[in-house]
């Protein structure tokens, strides 16, 4: 049995309860359990499309669940899941942004770069398809490719989350492009074209490095360019005030 802490603003929909005990064993299931028990609360947690509303943040024992495993984060006996509102606004007309954990993205990029450079230096071509698979699985799940490494570092308290209001979609697209390039590199290795394979791998290393060290995400820039020309599916416009692809500056 774990508990959910309901913020003051939502207690009007839980009959005044600030702590609700739940049986669920994952964060997602716990929210569903809460929504079933308090139907009036459900419309405030989820949009009509079933997505968590932008202002809803979830912290498990003081840790943002986005830096854990999101809705799949397991709940153990005695855990306390806190729903905390993100209070945000401003006069501008804008598309809604989400809090994107750039620490998770950067950690993944660093591990990915290290793995690919190690593969090249030691001529271990088999590492390339592994990284490609992690990137493509990450793209499918909408999560960073080396999220597990980030979670391990978070557990050790070596790294702190860096939540920046941003669009997650371009980062996901960029990850997919990188994964696809490495998949193509794998095909080249199998076809006996190691120069082509390493060439493509180095393209991914260079783009990852550009993003990691200079804060410029080429895949995101391509996403925003496709958005500008009206490509279906590329619905998010860049956050205002930045060059498309540039990392939004870190909150102080």
């Amino acid at each position, binding site marked *: 049995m774990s508990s959910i802490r309901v*913020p*003051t*603003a*939502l207690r*009007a*929909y839980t009959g005044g309860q600030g702590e609700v005990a739940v049986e669920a064993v994952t964060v997602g299931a716990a929210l569903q359990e809460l929504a079933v028990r308090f139907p009036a609360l459900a*419309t*405030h947690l989820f*949009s009509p499309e079933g997505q968590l*509303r*932008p*202002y809803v*943040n979830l*912290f498990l024992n*003081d840790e943002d669940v986005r830096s854990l495993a999101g809705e799949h984060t397991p709940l153990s006996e005695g855990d306390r899941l*806190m729903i*905390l*509102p*993100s*209070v*945000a*606004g*401003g*006069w*501008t*007309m*804008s598309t*809604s942004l989400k809090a994107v954990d750039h620490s998770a993205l950067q950690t993944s990029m660093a591990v990915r770069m290290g793995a690919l450079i190690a593969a090249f230096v030691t001529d271990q071509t088999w590492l390339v398809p592994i990284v490609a698979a992690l990137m493509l699985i990450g793209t499918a799940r909408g999560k960073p490719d080396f999220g597990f490494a980030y979670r391990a570092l978070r557990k050790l308290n070596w790294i702190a989350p860096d939540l*920046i*209001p941003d669009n997650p979609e371009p980062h996901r697209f960029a990850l997919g492009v990188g994964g696809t390039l490495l998949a193509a590199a794998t095909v080249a290795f199998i076809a006996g074209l190691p120069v082509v394979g390493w060439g493509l791998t180095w393209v991914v290393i260079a783009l990852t490095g550009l993003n990691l060290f200079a804060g410029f995400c080429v895949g995101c820039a391509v996403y925003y360019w496709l958005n500008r020309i009206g490509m279906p599916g590329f619905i998010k416009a860049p*956050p*205002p*005030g*930045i060059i498309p692809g540039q990392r*939004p*500056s*870190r*909150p*102080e």
Partner: protein
Amino acid sequence: MSLRVSSELMAEIGRHGEEQYPEEAAGLLLGAVDGETRSARRVLPLANVFDSEQRGRRYLINPLDILHAEDEAERVGMDVVGVFHSHPDHPPTPSKFDLDWAVPWYVYLITSVREGVASESRAWKLQDDHSQMIEELLTVEQEAR
């Protein structure tokens, strides 16, 4: 629903907006709820952690600041009843962005800060279906709390 704020607190909110101008200033309103009326008894100015280049038109309060504010409110026997923020050189009406991010139940007090001077304030609350912000009656009381 209505919001009652003392003139002293309104002045404090105005000052925070003026100090942060041309950036947006934001914070929380602590107080009491009595039926349909909310009375602000204390204001808690908080850091605007939005990306610095965009703070002229956006604000974001760290969720953990909300947790601490709720704990603090509980400690002094109050509730976090709402949010205040400034609109530098813009009217005190909610934007689409305000609507998208609005938290239900909270009252949103928006103060227009024109050329560095706090002017008009209006209070708003999210309609339960999240479709719009509805204006609330704002009463500024001259006497001290």
